[in-house]
C-alpha cells in the first residue's frame, strides 16, 4: 500500500475505527490526519461488549505523531461558510466543516476527507471536490484491511456515492448553496 494516502478523518470515522479496533493497523498503512475540532468531538467510545466508556487516546497518538492534527483559520472557515446557505451550514458538524475549509483553501493537497455524513459528502460535490472524499469502506479496502463485522451502511461506498450524487445535483440546481450577491441585491429591492 502506498504510504502517500493521507486521510483527513471526521469524528464519526475516528469513533468507528476505534470501535472496530483497527486504528493501529490503519495508521501503519495510511497517514491519518484530524481537524483540531475533531479532537474534542471524538473523546471517548462506548465499548459495546462491556458497555463501558473508553477514552479515545487521540492525544497520545498526536504526541507520538502517528496521527497529525491540522487547524483551519477563521478566514478559511468563513470562506467555506460563505459558499452555502444558512440551513445547509447548520446541517454540518464543526469538525467536518473545518476539514472542508482546509480542502477548499487547498491547504492540504492530496488529502482525502473520510466521512460518513451526508452533508459533508454532498458539500464536497457542491464545491466541485467530489474526488477529495473517501468512504470508510474504500479507505479500509485501499489499506487492505478486512473487518470481521460488516460496516454500517453510512460507512459504505454505496452511501458515499449516493450522497455525492445528491451533491452534484444540488450543485446544478443551487440547492443549499449561497445565493450570488447579485441575486441577493435583486431580492432586497423587491
Amino acid at each position, binding site marked *: 500500500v502506498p504510504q502517500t494516502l493521507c486521510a483527513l478523518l471526521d*469524528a*464519526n470515522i475516528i*469513533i468507528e475505527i476505534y*470501535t472496530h479496533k483497527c486504528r493501529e493497523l490503519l495508521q501503519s498503512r495510511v497517514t491519518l490526519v484530524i481537524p483540531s475540532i475533531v479532537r474534542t*468531538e*471524538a*473523546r*471517548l*467510545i*462506548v465499548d*459495546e461488549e462491556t458497555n463501558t*466508556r473508553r477514552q479515545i487516546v487521540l492525544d497520545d497518538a498526536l504526541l507520538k505523531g502517528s496521527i497529525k492534527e491540522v487547524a483551519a483559520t477563521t478566514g478559511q472557515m468563513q470562506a467555506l461558510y460563505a459558499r452555502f446557505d444558512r*440551513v445547509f451550514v*447548520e*446541517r*454540518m*458538524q*464543526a*469538525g*467536518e466543516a473545518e476539514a472542508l475549509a482546509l480542502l477548499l483553501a487547498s491547504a492540504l493537497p492530496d488529502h482525502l476527507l473520510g466521512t*460518513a*455524513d*451526508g*452533508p*459533508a*459528502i454532498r458539500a464536497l460535490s457542491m464545491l466541485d471536490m467530489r474526488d477529495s472524499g473517501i468512504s470508510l469502506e474504500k479507505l479500509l479496502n485501499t489499506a487492505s484491511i478486512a473487518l470481521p463485522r460488516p460496516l*454500517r*451502511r*453510512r460507512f459504505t461506498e454505496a*452511501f458515499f456515492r*449516493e*450522497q455525492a450524487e*445528491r451533491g452534484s445535483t444540488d450543485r446544478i440546481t443551487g440547492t443549499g448553496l449561497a445565493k450570488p450577491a447579485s441575486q441577493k441585491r435583486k431580492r432586497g429591492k423587491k
Partner: protein
Amino acid sequence: VAWRNKPEQGTESEQARFLELCRRYHLIESWVGEIQDESLPIIRRQPLSHSFEWAQALAERTFKQLNLGDYPALSLEKTLEEEYSVKIFHWPELKGSAASESGLCIWEERIEKLADVFASAMLLPADLVKKEIDQRVRAHVITWRDLAELAETFAVSKQAFVWRLVTLKYLTQINAQKLLNESAFLQTEHNTGIRKDASIFPERYLRLLKTAYLRGEVATGRVAEMLNRTLPEMRRELIQWEEEEAGATNLVRLA
C-alpha cells in the same frame, strides 16, 4: 417571550434555553421540509374587550377549523404540531408556568378567565358532551363513576369537566362546588396533565430528527447536539434507528 407565570429564578436562562430549542426545532423542520404554511387564527383586537360568550363562540369556530374530532384534547397537541408547526415543549420543572415565543399576550386575571372559557368550550364541545351525558343520565341523576369516566374519555381534569356541566346547565354552581369539595370524588383523578416521560423534546421533534438523520440530511454529530448528547453516547441509539430503517423498505405482497 411572554410568560404566563414567570419562574421565580432563572427566567433569563430558561428563556434562552426555550428560544434555542425553538430554533433547533425549526432547523430540523427545514432539514426535512416539514414547515407548514398554515398559521393559527390571530385575534387582532384586545381580548380584554370581549365577553365570555365571545370566547365560547371563538372556541366553537376554532374547534371546527382545527377539525379536532370527538375528543379534542386527545388530538389538539398533535394537530397544532403537525398542521400548524406549533412547537410545544413540556418542562416538568416549570410546573404551572407557560411561555409563548410568538404573539403578544399579556396574562391578566380577565384573560385567564376568557382562556378558561375558551379551553372548556373547545375541549368539551357542547353537542358531544350533551350526547354522552344524556346517554348516562337516569331520572335526572348521574353517577360519580360516569362523570370520572367522561372526564377521562375527554382527557380533561374532573374540575374542568364539572365546570363545563355548569355552563351547559346540567349543574348549578353550588352543586358543582359541593361535588368538587368531595375528596372521594377527586381521588380517582387520572388526568393530571403531567406527562409521564421526562423528556423535554416533543415526539415530533424526535421523529423529524430521526427522519433527517436516516435520510442523510444532517451530520451525526449535529443529531447528538440537538439532543444535548455526545456523539459516542448516541452511537447505540443511532444503530437502532438504522436497523429499524433497514426493514422499513421491505415490501408486503397484498391479496
